[in-house]
Structures are given as structure tokens and as C-alpha cells.
């Protein structure tokens, strides 16, 4: 009887927690939609009333809203039950205000729901002071202070913006969703220097220094729910260089990242111990933009060092490598098809994951050591600011699923998995 009472109480509590969670989710979505529509409406009114345009460059309001459906079969990339999911929501609102000739304020708030891919909810995507330190006909130097976006990889600055990236799901080798909130930007300072030369083309150099807050959910995504301690990023130094020859359809770039993380064990109880993580990430990229054909590719190498964590004397160093090649073809000016191949492995000395399986006594299957993805996609621009997109992925390997450190091999019991997604996107 007592047992039954206990069970009932537990069910009730869990259902009320569930209801509360649903309600919270509903309210937060409703509020976000209301804000977006009010902003759209206010923007429209403003432009109706203020036809002078004299201030149009001083204050700008922009945003985007997108919703899709995604179905994953054979992995927990989005959800655990493998059902069709609507956890593909991306909403953003940003403002830019020119304070003076040299100073500008800018910020963006986004709401994201990607299921298991990253933490669901609102976040401040960027909030910065932009100081235009030097400006001439061929040189520009800007200093950004505050929370700025990672501007170093081909799609890192626009990965949150559905219509500005090439596909619904980006190549996970470089743009790993499990690492998204740390890689997407930093709190600190960045400098961007651009030079345009009639003979030699355009040069862009960016250097940034800062750190990203690591939330509890982000810790769970990376380390798994059994890590009871606190993870934090100590610093991140990131630099990149891009060159586009004069009037050329080609652009070339590279980036270097160096970052340290630390983990502080829970003093009362923890499965893991205090540790330092060191992470280096290098990319080389190329982009070709023709009238019909477009090609892009990134090759990268990462070095990951774990000092501690599994035990006080553990020191583990691994070098991961990956690349992707992507082709897009414009069938018409509004209809684009995409084909992409990517290949990634966690350890260059263990490309087939056999050592991984052996070292964990079979707990982590070999296919967690790599990730290969063949993607086909279609994008249709319905109007100048409304697009539809669909794509299909054939994936081999579980190397880019979350949690990372303690993988879930119960749900992810298959080496091959597939997914498809459809997304509608509107922006202003």
C-alpha cells in the first residue's frame, strides 16, 4: 500500500513537473513569437512613418524565424525515441545602433531548439561595442568588445542563421553541434583588419581572445550526466586570415585556435577528478563562387589533451582530423542543389576505432571513433526573404554524437544511421 502511494506520488510529481516544463516551454515560445511580431510590426510602422531614411543607417532591426521537421533513424542525434521531431526551431532578433562616427552597439538574442544537439532555450548570441578604429578607402580596422561571434571558419559566424548557412545540418566535423555554444563565440575582445587592393585583392585578418561560459547542460552534453563537477573554459585565443584575389571567384583561408578548459570535481561525490583539458584546432579552407557552380571545403586537425579527469595520473593526448567537400549548383537563380561528403576521425592513429573499443573493454564500440556523412540537399528561395530547404544525410559512425566523453552506446547501437529534414525560413 505504502509502495503504491509512493509510486502514485512519484507519478504525480513527475507529471506536474512535466506539465510545468511544457507550460514553461509554451510560454517562452509564445513570448519570443510575440516579441518577433511586435518588432516586425514596429519596424513596418517605423518605415511607413519615417520615409526620410535619414536615420536608416543609425538604427537597424533585423530578425529571422524558422521551423522545420527532422527525422533521425538509428541514432540519438536529435531525440532518443527516433520519432519525427519538430525540435528544429531557430528564432533571432538583432539590433544595431550607431552611437557616433566611430562607435556602434549591436546585439542579437536567439531562441534555439535542436533536441539533443545543443541546449534548448534563449541565449545572447552577441552583444558588443564595435569601435571603428581606422577607416580609409582601402583599410578598415575594427575592435569588438563584449560577446562576439566566432568569425574564423567558413560558416562559423552564420551557423546560427538558417538561411545564411549552406544546409540545415552543417558538417559536424568542423561545426559539431555538441560544441556549438562554446565554439560559436566568446566574451572578450576581437580585432578585425581588412585591406582591399586593386592588384592583389581582399585581405581579412581577425584575432580574438576571450572565454565562453559553460552551462550545466553544456557540461552534460559534453561529459555526460554522471559528471557532477563544474567545467569551465579558461581562455580561447583564435586567429584567422582570408585572401580573395582581385575580382576572383576563389577565396582561401586558414585559422588557428588554442584553448584551455578545466574541470573541478564535486567535493561531495564525483566519478571524475580535477582535470585540465587543452584543445587546439587548425583549419584550412577554400571557397569558389561561380555563376552556377559553387565549391567549398575545409580541412582540419585538432589536438585534445586530457590531464586528469578519469584519474589523478591519467594523461591522454589524441589528434583528430577531418575534412568536408561541398558542391552547390544553381539550377535556376532560386533553386539550388547541394552535395557534400565529410570524413572525420577522433584519433589519426585509430581511424577505424579499434583501439578505442579495446581500451574501453568494449564499452565504447569502434564506430564512436569516426563520422562520415554523405548529404544531398535542395534549397528554394520563394521570395527575397523566404526560403524552403530539405536534405538527406547518410551517416556512418557515431563519432559526432553527444554526450562525447561518456557515449551512449545503448541507443546508438548501429554504425550506420540516416536523417532527413525540411525547414522553412523567414527573415527581415
Amino acid at each position: 500500500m505504502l509502495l503504491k502511494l509512493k509510486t502514485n506520488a512519484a507519478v504525480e510529481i513527475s507529471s506536474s513537473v512535466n506539465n510545468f516544463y511544457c507550460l514553461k516551454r509554451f510560454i517562452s515560445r509564445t513570448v519570443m513569437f510575440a516579441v518577433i511580431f511586435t518588432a516586425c510590426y514596429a519596424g513596418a510602422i517605423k518605415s511607413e512613418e519615417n520615409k526620410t531614411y535619414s536615420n536608416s543607417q543609425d538604427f537597424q532591426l533585423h530578425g529571422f524565424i524558422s521551423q522545420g521537421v527532422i527525422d533521425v533513424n538509428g541514432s540519438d542525434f536529435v531525440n532518443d525515441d527516433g520519432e519525427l521531431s519538430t525540435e528544429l526551431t531557430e528564432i533571432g532578433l538583432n539590433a544595431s545602433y550607431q552611437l557616433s562616427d566611430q562607435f556602434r552597439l549591436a546585439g542579437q538574442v536567439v531562441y534555439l531548439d535542436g533536441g539533443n544537439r545543443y541546449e534548448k532555450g534563449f541565449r545572447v548570441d552577441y552583444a558588443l561595442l564595435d569601435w571603428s578604429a581606422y577607416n580609409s578607402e582601402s583599410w578598415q580596422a575594427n575592435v569588438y568588445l563584449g560577446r562576439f561571434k566566432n568569425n574564423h571558419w567558413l560558416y562559423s559566424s552564420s551557423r546560427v542563421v538558417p538561411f545564411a548557412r549552406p544546409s540545415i545540418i552543417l558538417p559536424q566535423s568542423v561545426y559539431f553541434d555538441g560544441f556549438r555554444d562554446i565554439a560559436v563565440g566568446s566574451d572578450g575582445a576581437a580585432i578585425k583588419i581588412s585591406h582591399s587592393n586593386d592588384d592583389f585583392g581582399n585581405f581579412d585578418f581577425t584575432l580574438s581572445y576571450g572565454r565562453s561560459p559553460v552551462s550545466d547542460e553544456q557540461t552534460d552534453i559534453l561529459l555526460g550526466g554522471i559528471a557532477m563537477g563544474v567545467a569551465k573554459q579558461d581562455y580561447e585565443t583564435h586567429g584567422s586570415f582570408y585572401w580573395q584575389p582581385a575580382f576572383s571567384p576563389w577565396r582561401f583561408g586558414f585559422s588557428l585556435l588554442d584553448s584551455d578548459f578545466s574541470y573541478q570535481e564535486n567535493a561531495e561525490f564525483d566519478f571524475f577528478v580535477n582535470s585540465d583539458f587543452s584543445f587546439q584546432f587548425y583549419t584550412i579552407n577554400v571557397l569558389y563562387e561561380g555563376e552556377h557552380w559553387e565549391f567549398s571545403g575545409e580541412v582540419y586537425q585538432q589536438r585534445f589533451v586530457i590531464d586528469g579527469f578519469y584519474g589523478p595520473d591519467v594523461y591522454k593526448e589524441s589528434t583528430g582530423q577531418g575534412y568536408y567537400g561541398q558542391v552547390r549548383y544553381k539550377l535556376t537563380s532560386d533553386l539550388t542543389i547541394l552535395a557534400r561528403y565529410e570524413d572525420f576521425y577522433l584519433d589519426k592513429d585509430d581511424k577505424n576505432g579499434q583501439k578505442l573499443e579495446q581500451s574501453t573493454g568494449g564499452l565504447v564500440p569502434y564506430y564512436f571513433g569516426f563520422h562520415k556523412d554523405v548529404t544531398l540537399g535542395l534549397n528554394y528561395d520563394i521570395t527575397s526573404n523566404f526560403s524552403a530547404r530539405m536534405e538527406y544525410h547518410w551517416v556512418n559512425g557515431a563519432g559526432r554524437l553527444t554526450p562525447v566523453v561518456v557515449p551512449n552506446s545503448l541507443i546508438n547501437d548501429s554504425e550506420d544511421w540516416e536523417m532527413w529534414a525540411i525547414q522553412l525560413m523567414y527573415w527581415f
Partner: protein
Amino acid sequence: MLACLVTSQVSAIEVVTHPQVVESNLTKSQLRRIYTMRQLRWSDNSAISVFVLPSQHKLHKRFAKEKLQIFPYQLNRIWHKLTYSGLGVAPTIVASEQELIQAIIKTPGAIGYIDDKTLIKIKQSEITISHRNIDVADMEDNQQVSSKGVVNVVKIKD
């Protein structure tokens, strides 16, 4: 007669600026720098305000290809990156050619583009903008609005 036929089929695109803009001609590279937001100031250090039509507008597509030698999707990419990642400010998009010409007339430092046929249409209907008539006297002679008028027509050199 033949020349007349040719011009009626393939209209020219003119680059126009606010009358206070000091530049009367620009090189192709300069125009490209301005539209890719790599040059933000005129030679007198005043801020440039860039105006464009929506990306699917026929005139915008022609302007991008013919005058900038960039495909419209490339421009979108550059501008989206600026607007949605906080790096900078993208051009202001206006819905129609008439709105675009109004914006240029009213915004100091403004630059935009217009189909010369539209200029003629504006002339014919004599649209009143801001209680001022467009100065079309010179246009009849030169097929364009003169620098003394309400907008400058900028000459684009190679």
C-alpha cells in the same frame, strides 16, 4: 532609329548619389568596395549610406552582375554575415525603384542605382518628392539627371 531601338531594349543602369557627395566618378573597384561594405566613407570622410533593391528584383540582379561583377547571392552572403553576426551594417533594402530614388535624395552620403528608363518615367509623371519637383531640365538634354539636380549620376570607370 536603330539606336533608338537598341536603347529601348537594353536600358542602362545608372549609379546615383546624393547631390552633396563629392565624387563624380568611381572606379569599378571602388563601387565594388562600397557595395561589399569594404569602403564606408567618401573621400571627404562623410559616411556612405548604401541602398539596394530586394535581391530577387531584376534591376538588382543586373546591377550586381553588370556593374559589380558579383552574383547577387554573393552579395547576400556578405550582407547577411554583417547583419546577423554583429560585424557591421549591411545596405538598406527598399522595395521599389521610386523608393530607392527618394531615399537617395533624402539621405546625405547615399548611393544607389536606377534604370535610366525609370528616370524618364519619373520625369514624365513629374512626381513630387518632398514638395520638390525632380530637376529634369538637364535630363532632357543628357538623358540623365545632372549633378546640379536632386541626385548625382556617377560615372563608372574601369
